[in-house]
């Protein structure tokens, strides 16, 4: 038959009569998106994403059903098409009710895949866990110890009883990795020949260096202090984060990726900023905020008044003030203030007073820090505010005069505002005053860069570029955004992406991918969950720890970590990484779907008022969530047209349509044969494979093509592999199966990683199976087989392999018999 010539986006393509535009485009590698097309079932045309324009036709045409005609001129990506696709996705998303990612990950400034690594720990895949963490956090041991963990604050397990100990689990994974003797170091791309200077070796600088190095750039970190780590090293006390044992080790790993670190080098003193700009293709300013700020009260310049971070730094540098037997007042309510209090206690202070103008409940410090400080004897002078620091005769601090406060009306932040109680004051006798109020930036040496009003480095929050071309900034030093370490790492990751593009001659803006979030959870939603409180971590008793700087908490052991990780509620969608709905939402810029917001078609099976199917979610292999369904009908059509079963169908009409099992019975009783092809074709998370053997984790996986071992048909499958575990199967388009599988091929893969699987050879010795080494076993087999073959010939031997071996193993097995032993007496017991 003659070929028909068509032009698709100006490209000449040829197709056969009867072929659709979509088919011809696919054959010619021209991308036309679609959510409801599948060549194995009849064209459906419901999604409308595949629309194209054809010259001479005023309408948008669905390419999945429009047949090609001679010399047709097709456009697949005009503004009108993009606009239609965008609104289409907006409408779909406006009716989507589900979480793409868990609140843990979404609330981590660095976007760490918390659910992912918690799940991996639950499954005992510690190596994979650290790899995943290190995609975002280069210093996980440090962050796991000191992070104020917004992930946990937002963890939904908190609605059940207590959040997952996400930070401690991170620390666990990092410690296991560090102690493994072979800690994980990411691979770097080939050298690009581009050079980047990073000013500052703190969390921001080190992390940016780490990410940029992975992209193949030569990175040099300039650090003014003798050691890297920034505030993690000099601002966090040893008892919370051991320096040599943890932080320095992690810095070394960064160095091992090829990052050059120059310590004791200050810009403007040892090398000029201008020189750096000349020498490097890009410069990143990550100098942090190292200036301690005061309250502005009288007497702040008195001898004996020390900035909080300056004090902590002096302790790390082993040049602390002598606090033994002294009275110390620490002003401030944040973690730095707590660090100062607890450090003062450890230095032998007689009384360590914490001065804070609100109550404990309003303190920004972590609750655990306050609690542990209290245990160690810190005296909390809440609802007091310094008025004056009064010097003694020799000019040193003698007293601190305090205004007594009370809580008034809430301010804009919702916290109740402290107001002075008229005429009520208090005076404490003190020898030192530590001011842990706030920090500021000292940008001395970084010349000719625009600064913020508060003297921070100003940069574009989307491109991270400063007023100077090729000079970038982030972390505490920029845009007056002094925050926690993980926030700096987030900046590092984002700016690295932008800098990388810049080094390749592109200017991009960092953009967070859009995700859908459910906000309708409350305690009631989890009432049916078993209460299981978090695993407490062992720690040193207060009286044992307050006299030294040893690390307070011990860390989880494997068993504790696994048990804790198993508490995860698995909020994020299991199909996030394969979901075409969210992919297209981002692709077509439909993130602003709020403008389409309206009622959602929600099926709440737990709702006692829900009238309908006696919802039974017990299907052994298929997990359903109609609230994520986009009504593409692929599952229904696959089940009906290809499998000839009809277990699933559309119920109701219009907006209320929902996919349900036939006759609204439980899916298992609907004639379903559990082939899972519905799951395989679902473009969203509405139908997912139920995972029972391990914790289901949404992860990016590697696909390994193989042949299903169960019968002789030879269905091609892709094993989904993460680390050393097979975590799922998806059908491949082999000649025998065209992307179709049966229940065995799709779901019965758990034997591969099953804990009962024999991994050690056994030999029956004196009637008892005894584990032996591989060498011994192989010798035993070889010896006996050789003997039989010599005595009775090769055909006296027959081999039979288990149904639960992979195709590759079967291949080797038969090869051994045919080529090695010389017999065709070999078979596989699951053969049809």
């Amino acid at each position, binding site marked *: 038959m003659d070929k028909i010539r068509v032009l698709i986006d100006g490209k000449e393509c040829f197709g056969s009569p009867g072929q659709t535009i979509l088919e011809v485009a696919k054959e010619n590698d021209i991308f036309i998106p679609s959510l409801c097309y599948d060549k194995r079932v009849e064209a459906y*045309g*419901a999604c*409308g994403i595949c629309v194209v324009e054809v010259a001479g036709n005023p309408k*948008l045409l669905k390419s999945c059903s429009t047949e090609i005609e001679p010399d047709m001129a097709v456009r697949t990506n005009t503004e009108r098409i993009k606009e*239609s696709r965008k609104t289409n996705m907006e409408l779909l998303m406006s009716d989507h009710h589900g979480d793409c990612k868990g609140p843990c990950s979404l609330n981590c400034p660095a976007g760490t895949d918390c659910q992912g690594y918690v799940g991996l720990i639950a499954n005992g895949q510690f190596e994979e866990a650290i790899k995943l963490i290190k995609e975002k956090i280069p210093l996980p041991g440090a962050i796991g110890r000191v992070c104020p963990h917004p992930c946990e604050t937002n963890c939904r397990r908190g609605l059940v009883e207590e959040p997952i100990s996400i930070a401690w689990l991170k620390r666990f994974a990092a410690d296991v990795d560090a102690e493994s003797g072979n800690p994980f170091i990411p691979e770097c791309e080939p050298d690009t020949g581009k050079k980047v200077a990073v000013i500052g070796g703190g969390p921001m600088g080190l992390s940016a260096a780490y990410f940029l190095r992975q992209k193949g750039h030569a990175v040099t970190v300039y650090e003014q202090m003798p050691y890297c780590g920034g505030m993690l090293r000099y601002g966090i006390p040893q008892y919370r984060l051991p320096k040599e044992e943890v932080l320095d080790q992690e810095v070394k790993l960064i160095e091992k990726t090829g990052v050059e670190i120059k310590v004791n080098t200050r810009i403007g003193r040892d090398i000029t900023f201008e020189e750096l700009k000349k020498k490097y293709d890009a410069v990143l300013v990550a100098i942090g905020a190292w200036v301690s700020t005061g309250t502005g009260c009288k007497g702040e310049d008195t001898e004996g008044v020390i900035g909080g971070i300056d004090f902590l730094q002096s302790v790390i540098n082993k040049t602390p003030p002598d606090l033994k037997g002294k009275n110390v007042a620490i002003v401030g309510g944040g973690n730095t203030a707590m660090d100062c209090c607890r450090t003062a206690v450890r230095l032998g202070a007689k009384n360590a007073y914490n001065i804070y103008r609100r109550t404990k409940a309003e303190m920004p410090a972590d609750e655990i820090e306050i609690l542990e400080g209290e245990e160690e004897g810190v005296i909390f002078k809440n609802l007091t505010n310094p008025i004056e620091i009064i010097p003694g005769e020799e000019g040193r601090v003698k007293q601190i005069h305090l205004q007594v406060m009370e809580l008034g009306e809430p301010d804009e932040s919702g916290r109740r505002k402290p107001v002075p109680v008229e005429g009520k004051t208090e005076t404490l006798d003190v020898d030192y005053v530590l001011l842990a109020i706030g920090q500021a930036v000292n940008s001395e040496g970084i010349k000719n860069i625009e600064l913020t009003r508060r003297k921070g480095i100003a940069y574009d929050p989307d491109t991270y570029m400063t007023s100077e071309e090729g000079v970038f900034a982030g972390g505490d030093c920029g845009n007056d955004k002094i925050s926690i370490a993980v926030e700096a790492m987030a900046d590092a990751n984002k700016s690295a992406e932008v800098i990388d593009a810049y080094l390749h001659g592109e200017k991009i803006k960092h953009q967070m991918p859009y995700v859908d979030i459910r906000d309708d959870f409350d305690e009631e939603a989890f009432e049916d969950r078993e209460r299981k409180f978090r695993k407490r971590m062992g720690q040193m008793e207060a009286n044992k720890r307050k006299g030294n700087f040893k690390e307070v908490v011990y860390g989880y052991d494997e068993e504790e970590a696994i048990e804790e990780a198993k508490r995860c509620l698995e909020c994020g969608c299991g199909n996030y990484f394969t979901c075409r709905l969210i992919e297209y939402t981002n692709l077509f810029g439909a993130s602003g779907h709020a*403008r389409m917001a309206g009622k959602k078609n929600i099926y709440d099976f737990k709702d006692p008022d829900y009238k309908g199917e006696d919802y039974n979610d017990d299907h052994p292999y298929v997990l359903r969530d109609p609230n994520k369904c986009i009504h593409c009908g692929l599952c229904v059509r696959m089940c009906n047209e290809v499998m000839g079963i009809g277990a699933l169908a*559309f119920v109701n009409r*219009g*907006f*209320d349509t929902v996919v349900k099992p036939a006759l609204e019975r439980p899916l298992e009783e609907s004639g379903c044969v559990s082939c899972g092809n519905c799951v395989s074709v679902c473009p969203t998370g509405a139908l997912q494979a139920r995972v029972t053997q391990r914790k289901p984790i949404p992860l990016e996986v590697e696909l390994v093509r193989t042949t299903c071992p169960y019968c002789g048909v030879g269905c091609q499958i892709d094993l989904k592999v993460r680390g050393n575990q097979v975590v799922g199967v998806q059908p491949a388009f082999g000649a025998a199966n065209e992307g179709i599988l049966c229940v065995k091929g799709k779901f019965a893969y758990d034997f591969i990683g099953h804990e009962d699987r024999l991994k050690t050879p056994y030999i029956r010795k004196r009637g008892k199976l005894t584990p032996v080494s591989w060498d011994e076993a192989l010798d035993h087999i070889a010896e006996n087989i050789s003997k039989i073959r010599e005595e009775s010939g090769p055909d006296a031997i027959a081999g039979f392999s288990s149904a639960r071996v992979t195709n590759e193993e079967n291949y080797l097995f038969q090869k051994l018999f045919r080529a090695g032993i010389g017999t065709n007496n070999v078979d596989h017991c699951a053969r049809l």
Partner: protein
Amino acid sequence: MKVVIGQGSCGIASGAQQTAGEFERYIKEMNIRNVTIEKTGCIGACFLEPIVDIYSAEEELEGRYVNVFPEKVEEIAKAHLICGKTADTYLISKENEEYLNLQKRVVMRNCGQINPESIDDYTKKGGYKAAEKAVKEMQPENIIDEMEASGLRGRGGAGFPVWKKWKATREQESDVKYVICNGDEGDPGAFIDRALLEGDPHNIIEGMIICAYAVGASSGIMYVRAEYPLAVERLEKALKQAEGKGFLGKNIFGSDFSFDITLRIGAGAFVCGEETALIASLEGQQGLPKIRPPYPSKRGYWKKPTNVNNIETLANVPYIIENGGALLASMGTEKSKGTKVFALAGKAKRGGLIEVPMGTTLKEIIFDIAGGIRDGGKFKAAQVGGPSGGCIPEELLHTPVDYESITATGAIIGSGGIIVMDETTCMVDMARYFLDFTAKESCGKCNYCRIGTRRMLEILERITTGTSKDGDIEMLNELAEKVQDGSMCGLGQTAPNPVITTIRYFRNEYKDHIVDRKCTAGVCKFETAQQ
């Protein structure tokens, strides 16, 4: 003498059966001889029902009595049947006669004239002659040529040339082909198909026979909605009668052409009026439209070539074959030939069915034929084409009703419903009302239709309750355009029409609602503002 009482659904609803009972009782009581009582279908003047026609022995119409409620029967019967004088008080008025006289009857030519339950009545009027002529004297190709000459376009709404559809089915090679008559008239306010089935079922059957012969089909299906029980009953009778006479079955008119018709009842989904959804429903599947191509003419019922025509379309066929296509083509406009039946409802003085040549203006229909607005009201707009149609304001009343002109206003001919509205109708509320209907009737297959119509409805609900937001009109327009563009079938493609046209012609009313929270028609009740 013959007393003929109109007993279509409209007549029955007005009490025609009681009227007939009264006549029967009176004639029996008075022992009046040589008087028979018969029934007929709807003549179209529903506002005059029950209508009683009294014919002389020579079949001359002697008197047409209107609004004959049972209490009037004695007086009329006494005067006319006993005294031989017409009971003038109850005769149809001159003015109301105009209603009928100004029309042009093609498809309704027998409605209200014959007893629909009698095949003899139909054959006496020349019925089945066209089918006989077609089968015995014409080649299928000639029939299609004749259809082409008539210029007839599909009356189901889309206005696709009938001959093209027939030809496409004819050209398919297949062992089996089907003809389906689409009687799933789901538009609220439209009752044309019902009246045709109730008033002249044989005309439709005959049209189907001719069509089947022309396209080469051996099997036919009548798909009638369950909400039309009387039509179903009369159709069942008619089919039996036609079979009995050999007009259906094997070797029709002694030829080698065989054809039978099965009657199937719809289950009430509006979308099943769409041909592919109708076919899916006939196959026992859910009534979801399928994407076209392939068209049913290529791959229809049970994947066989299938020709689907609307009832009114088929009702034209015997007339065309009997009189030649040119006669029909002489009526109407250049591109829209023949007549069209409209169902007039709402605030028109005279409501019912009217058949007029294509090209008649809306003004003629609403003011000359229907007599304008009742109760002294002032015309505001007419919703033309049912819930999927659009509203046409006063300044466009000169628009001739033909496919192109009506479409140009933003409305559609659709199934032929015309709802006349006066100043007491709020146009925003009307748009909300119709969209509520189409959104509920959306099958849910296409994203744009399923979610888009719902979002549009939500906006309209906001506007009519005083909770609208800035940009709501713009959002409505944007969604309307995209829903039209992105929907597979006629339902979604036309659902936004009432919204688009009301915004186009009555934007001020929208603004009143949004900005001033005011409904001039006094229909919308606004939630009291939060203090």
